[in-house]
């Protein structure tokens, strides 16, 4: 079709002719995407702007008439509060550990799924179950599993007392939350990696075999480099998702014993304590930190999203 490659315009150059067809195409295209754009912006851009605005006020829903403009002091309060930094630290920990573990397990699963010939349907079905299950249900299942009263984990782990309380201290509680998170999201990771694995040509692997590469060398020198794009996309998606961890914490510990994440803190301020001012400031900070993480991953790993998901 009319691939309009617009040449750089100079004063003298005549305007590139845009045919009626191209104009009609633009109009039609814009009409078709309009509903989607409007919907996406109504629910995100508008509330985000409102959050920016509200974050400049001392505003509590319990005392709306006391609303007063306080400038950036909500941000100052948040950023100087050790609680903010502690939750951010815990959140980063959740993100790094879960994504790291998922990457390894997910890759193993992807390899198995790639290889397996028999019972393909069974494997695929079972891997989709954690993906489809409600996160809240996963949280419950694991909370009860780790419970010393009714769970089986203490009984199955020989080095633990049967009355060991996983939710009594930060470290075990964080581990329990991570287990639930990892269980629920590994299938997603492994499906993304499976797609990447499918793009590595068999010929290339066989050529490496003939060239004398061991299994391990083939994996590191042939398979993984050729899956780079898929791995990076999976990491980006999952990291941003993990940074927003909320459901599991809410269900399993309700933020007790310092397991609170930044999302949970924001939620607690706005919805439970009706502190819209400081809550909005936290919302903005949360949004900014997600942007920073996305930027870091893209820069660090040089993920070219455009080429990973683009038309030529």
């Amino acid at each position: 079709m009319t691939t309009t490659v617009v040449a750089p315009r100079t004063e003298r150059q005549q305007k590139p002719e845009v045919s009626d067809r191209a104009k009609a195409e633009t109009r039609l295209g814009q009409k078709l995407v309009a509903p989607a754009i409007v919907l996406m912006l109504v629910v995100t851009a508008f509330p985000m702007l409102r959050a920016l605005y509200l974050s400049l006020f001392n505003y509590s829903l319990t005392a709306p008439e006391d609303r007063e403009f306080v400038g950036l002091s909500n941000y100052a309060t948040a950023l100087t509060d050790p609680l903010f930094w502690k939750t951010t630290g815990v959140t980063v920990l959740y993100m790094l550990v879960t994504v790291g573990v998922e990457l390894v397990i997910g890759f193993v699963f992807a390899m198995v799924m790639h290889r397996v010939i028999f019972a393909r349907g069974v494997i695929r079905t079972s891997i989709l179950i954690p993906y489809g299950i409600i996160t809240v249900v996963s949280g419950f299942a694991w909370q009860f599993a780790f419970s010393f009263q009714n769970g089986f984990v203490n009984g199955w782990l020989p080095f633990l007392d049967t009355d060991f309380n996983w939710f009594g201290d930060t470290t075990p509680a964080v581990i329990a939350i991570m287990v639930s998170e990892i269980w629920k999201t590994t299938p997603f990771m492994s499906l993304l990696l499976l797609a990447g694995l499918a793009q590595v040509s068999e010929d290339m692997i066989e050529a490496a075999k003939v060239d004398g590469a061991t299994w391990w060398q083939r994996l590191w020198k042939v398979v993984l480099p050729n899956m780079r794009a898929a791995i990076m996309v999976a990491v980006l998606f999952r990291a941003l998702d993990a940074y927003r961890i909320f459901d599991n914490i809410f269900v399993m510990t309700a933020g007790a014993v310092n397991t609170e994440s930044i999302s949970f803190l924001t939620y607690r301020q706005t919805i439970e304590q009706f502190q819209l001012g400081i809550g909005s400031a936290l919302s903005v900070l949360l949004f900014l930190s997600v942007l920073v993480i996305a930027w870091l991953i893209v820069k660090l790993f040089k993920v070219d999203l455009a080429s990973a998901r683009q038309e030529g």
Partner: protein
Amino acid sequence: MRKVGTLIGCALILVWCLLPVVWIISLSFKSQTAITNGSPGFFPASGDSAGWQNYQDVLDNEQFRRAIFNSIGISLIATLLSVVIATLAAYAIARLEFQGKRFVLTTALAIAMFPVVSLVGPLFDMWRAFGLYDTWPGLIIPYMSFTLPLAIWTLSAFFREIPWEMEQAAQVDGATSWQAFRKVIVPLAAPGVFTAAILTFFFAWNDFVFGISLTSTERARPIPAALSFFVGSDPFNRPASLLAAGAVVSTIPIIIIVLIFQRKIVAGLTSGAVKG
């Protein structure tokens, strides 16, 4: 050797994926007295089994029934609308050259990584002002917005795979643009539309943050929120077996969808996220 490895891998996957599911089913058959007294162990001990009692109790619970109804209604409506809107947008992105295409793609990408929690505060405020708080549309609208990016990506990947010639041939054969879209493109993109619908449904069914923030009563509260509020505030002492029964019930629709459509979901996930 390789075969054995694959076999072990398969067994590992099955255990990993199904163990917690079996566990929660097993838990749902433990009696409530056994839970209160403490009943560690994977399967209900003899005498601790409650039979179908927990399921009966859950289904007799008006709030829970209402939550299921809410979840099904809200998820289905959100899915339907989201897929229709995403189909139009994805078609334009895959097929047409127009100004603002980059803007759409960027917006979709930005929203896909948006921290949901940072929106609930302002949305809570706005929805109360518009009278959308604690209503179905109050949840349907955010669900649509947040599933649109994934749906658009998946669908545009499918659209891009349909050869251009197909549509041109239809035009030469005498079809209007709309006829070409409806009679040739939509049938060919049906698997993609379908995948997008399932993924959207999963998202809506799974959502928790909006569910607890934008509802206050059983009028619109979906299942995940209802489950978490099932037992009041103390997270350490819950009627676990009853909750487990509720969890199993809420998972049944997902399992059915997965069983029927697993092939399509896998295809959709892999093509939508990496390639397209």
